[in-house]
């Protein structure tokens, strides 16, 4: 099974006027890596989830995500934004954005990996390390090692 995230799925200078543009930028990386087959279709699924309840949580984190038929392998794209992007959290915009892509019929083994990623996100030491990561490879390694 391929790793959840690789260096080309990391964008340490994520830009976008709003959450949709930021999400689209990250989705582009997933598509380029062949993990998402139909970017527009996938983004529609993400937006549908976002519309139910914004995915931002306190501490500057946005987690747009979807289970989608257009996803081939459980994947994560990670973006860091200096300006911050509003994901609807109570305490302001998110500077760490995690786009989680899960295949529609994903087995529970895949889901378990995503679950343990989600659990890591509530730990300050983890998010702090991600904020301090010097480059994309380091960020990807950090995330993968946290899930090992």
């Amino acid at each position, binding site marked *: 099974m391929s790793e959840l995230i690789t260096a080309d799925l990391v964008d340490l200078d994520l830009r976008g006027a709003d959450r949709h543009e930021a999400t689209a930028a990250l989705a582009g990386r997933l598509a380029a890596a062949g993990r998402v087959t139909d970017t527009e279709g996938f983004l529609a699924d993400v937006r549908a989830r976002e519309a139910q309840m914004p995915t931002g949580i306190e501490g500057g984190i946005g987690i747009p995500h979807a289970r989608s038929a257009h996803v081939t392998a459980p994947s994560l794209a990670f973006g860091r934004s200096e300006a911050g992007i509003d994901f609807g959290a109570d*305490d302001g915009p998110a500077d760490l954005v995690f786009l989680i892509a899960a295949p529609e019929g994903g087995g529970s083994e895949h889901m378990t990996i995503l679950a343990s990623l989600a659990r890591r*996100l509530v730990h300050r030491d983890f998010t702090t390390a991600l904020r301090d990561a010097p480059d994309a490879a380091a960020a990807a390694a950090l995330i993968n090692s946290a899930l090992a």
Partner: protein
Amino acid sequence: MKLVAVTSCPTGIAHTYMAAEALEQAAKDAGHEIHVETQGAAGAEALDPADIARADAVIFAADVDVRDKDRFAGKPLVSGPVKRGINHAADMVAEAVAQAEAAPAGPAAAAAPAAPAGPRLGPGGKLRLWLMTGVSYMLPFVAAGGILIALAFVIGGAEIANVVNGGEFQGTTYEAITDPTQILGQAGIAGLMFAIGGLAFSMLVPILAGFIAFGMADRMGIAPGVVGGLIAVNVGAGFLGGLAAGLIAGAIVMALKLIKANQAFAGIMRIVIIPLVGVFAVGFIMLVLIGQPIADAQAWLTDWLAGLSGVNAVLLGVILGAMMGFDLGGPVNKVAYLFGVGALASGDFTVMAAVMAAGMVPPLGLALASVVRPKLFTQAERQSGKAAWLLGAFFITEGAIPFAAADPLRVIPSTMVGGAVAGAVSMAFGASLRAPHGGIWVIPLIGDPGGFIVALLAGTVATGLCAVALKTAWKSKAAQAVDDSALVTI
């Protein structure tokens, strides 16, 4: 405490697990046992029915319907959106603990029908939880400030207050130290401790008000609450003014948060509008609607006391004593204290003795009550009871504030009764005192120290008995329950 929780969210791949992790951490940090069922995409591992049976309370952090809710029927329930479980896990755990303690014990609980939203704290319980939150954040300031001031008296003698702040003590007039950086040089380590203790004390009311508002309206409540508390200090409204400021600030921010702004505007709302409007509204209310009436009332009380000068001495002792015990350093207490200091200047030394005895009684009496009937007090109160012995001994009436702020309706009558008894007995013995502060440290300066000590003991016992009686006779279940949960927020 044993808890079970269920987390779920629309997609079931992110927030479900984040909430589970946050709740597990929060419960562990607060020393509770928790089992969490994640109803997410990775497949829910169902809670062990034995764990559910043993659980004292249930937490739902869920945006979609919890599956098989019937399993939890009859258990105290705290329920909220999944994000609350992530962002405010500690609060949810604290509420669950509070609910568990508020719930009737025994098999009756299991038979109770499950209310759809679960039992919630009534208005009285909520109010007490807010007050306790404020008190729990204030306690370290009381302990640090009060003990520093007491130690300053021990090391520097009772005149240390005048050495630092200026004024006359035992016929010597001191210049106030105007440059705070010179305190160590001019007043020594005792003066430094007195000054630092005083600064810590000056934060009591702002912290109390700020964190009452925090308890009500989360982080956005802090700024309006602290500012309201500062104004309460500035207008001399004391801790009761601080309670009012905190509650007003919390209510205003709660109301402002109800305004639904569209997404683009939401950020500005949180960062600019709510703090701006909240701080101004609280400031306006505290200064204009509360500050002026308090000043008027103080002026009226002062005139009234002056008109009483011919009255029976014991009755004057009762009145001054009750005033000292009423707001513990607040405006009414100040009027009585200044009346005592004024009497000193005109050569009547008995009033000051009565005032000091009555001012020492509230912390001493509550410390006594917390030792005699520890079960009536929260763990935090029992701890502050230990410091209250010392603070009372040094005439630091504020030592009683943590008790009074958490439960004003029961504690203030007790401190008033004890103060009145102490004031009356001291006047009856004709004990006299030429120093305006110092507590037991100035007993050698007292005329008829025996009578003064009898007054002190009588007042202390009266306050202790009253507090125990009131807390026993009129005990709200919710009050007891929220007590220890408020501790969790420290």
